[in-house]
């Protein structure tokens, strides 16, 4: 339980990585790191694909990244229509970890460029849902 609070609308209720949402509440965007072999994952995983261990720790995502690509959605799937238009993108962080998320509403389309410096932070929606978004660095 707990993961239904993730995102604008969650499609998953139960996952071993549900603690991710608690970290968002604490202001952290966390991935997982394997205790055995050190492999890092974002989004978080409960199991290590490199060494098969299921002993994972949490780590906080780096703050300095670059926007690799983005799109502005003018149509939305069922349940997201009220948010249109909204922007989503991929940011690459130090160490090569990437993250997919919406971009902050503060970023106007004319201010967004491929390659710009960005960071990531948690966001709480008015209905209590928790997510994270790409923000200007």
């Amino acid at each position: 339980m707990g993961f239904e609070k993730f995102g604008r609308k969650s499609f998953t209720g139960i996952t071993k990585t549900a603690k991710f949402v608690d970290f968002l509440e604490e202001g952290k965007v966390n991935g997982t790191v394997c205790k055995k072999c050190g492999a890092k994952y974002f989004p978080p995983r409960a199991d290590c694909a490199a060494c098969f261990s299921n002993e994972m720790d949490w780590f906080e995502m780096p703050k300095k990244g670059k926007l690799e690509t983005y799109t502005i959605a003018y149509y939305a799937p069922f349940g997201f229509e009220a948010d249109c238009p909204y922007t989503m993108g991929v940011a690459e962080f130090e160490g090569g970890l990437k993250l997919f998320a919406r971009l902050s509403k503060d970023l106007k389309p004319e201010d967004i460029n491929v390659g710009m410096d960005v960071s990531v932070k948690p966001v709480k929606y008015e209905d209590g849902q928790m997510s994270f978004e790409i923000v200007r660095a």
Partner: protein
Amino acid sequence: MAKDVAVIGVGQSYFVRGYEGSIRELAFEAFREAMQDAGITTKDIDASVFCSAPEYDKQRSPAGVLAEYLGLIPQPTFYIETVCSSSSTGVKVAYGMIKSGLHDVVVVLGFQKMSEITSAESQERMGRGADIQWESPFGTMMPAYYALYAQAYMAKNGLTHEDLMNVRIKSATYGQINERAVYRKAVTQADFDPNNPNARMAAPVAWPLRVGDACANADGSSCIILANAEKAKAFSKKPVWIIGIGAASEAVNMAARPDFSKGLRAPYIAAQQAYTMAGIKPSDVKVAEVHDCFTIAEIMAYEALGFAPVGEGKQLIREKATYKEGRIPVNVDGGLLSKGHPIGATGGSQIRTIVLQLRGEAGPMQVPGEPDIGLVHNVGGVGLYGNVTIFGR
């Protein structure tokens, strides 16, 4: 060139909006044509494989239901899916079944009745088209994912909206002469002009992609009949051989994808495998079908297949090299953009086009010069599954 497994029959329904019949009747349209093409009876078929994207099907476990309607009981049957490349995967599996010696003749039937569910249900499923745990909660849809590739690719490689428009105009050129296509109208520059109030294709869907950059949904079916060498020679005057097969997969989550400006990786890996198996190089291909679910996807496919150097795909459309008379004709049946994209039927339809081209039976779409090698590039999801199949005479 290995001549172990051949295509001996091909069929395809008309691709339409709102098919007036059930999925079994839709499947029968392609099956009938393929069986008549092969000139065989159901007694000659050893097994059947059915392919679709299950989220559009109301019928659970459709293989048994369709096999019965097609008269293929009690032969073994089963179901396969890799979303938009389901029937290419079906052909790959059938190839293995025949090559292993397990069966002599196998039917691969792809179908999709996208209108089987309401548009509200369809919208709901669209939202679950990718990683439902980590991406769907942001409100993702298929055009947005391809737009991520388009944005990065355009920024790096100087590809323009005009280039994308010209891919759409090319596909419409051939959609008009393909009587099975769902979209048969011409497309002109005026359709993409944002200052033209009647422009049908200019509105943004997921920037930088516009309405005209997206393929047409459709209901449809396709059927490919495969046979081993002995049966192919006995049944068919013009067998078309599968000479190369490649397939690969990719991370579903965008966070785990390599450089977006370089296009999709899985189809590139699949192409390398298929070229190696066939013992040919890209310049040996005389006609190709690529998965142009969006205009940008066709440009990326040119590069994945080695028809153009990385970053230079735009030159092929600028030079009209992929038109019917060009150096490497691509999607001269209208492609997904105009012929339509009934998900599970698409790969089989692409294969049918190439088989007809190699037999010299493609009618008004026939590529000149008696092509002897053709290629099909069929992608499932946003590059989640890459499939490349090469055919020879």
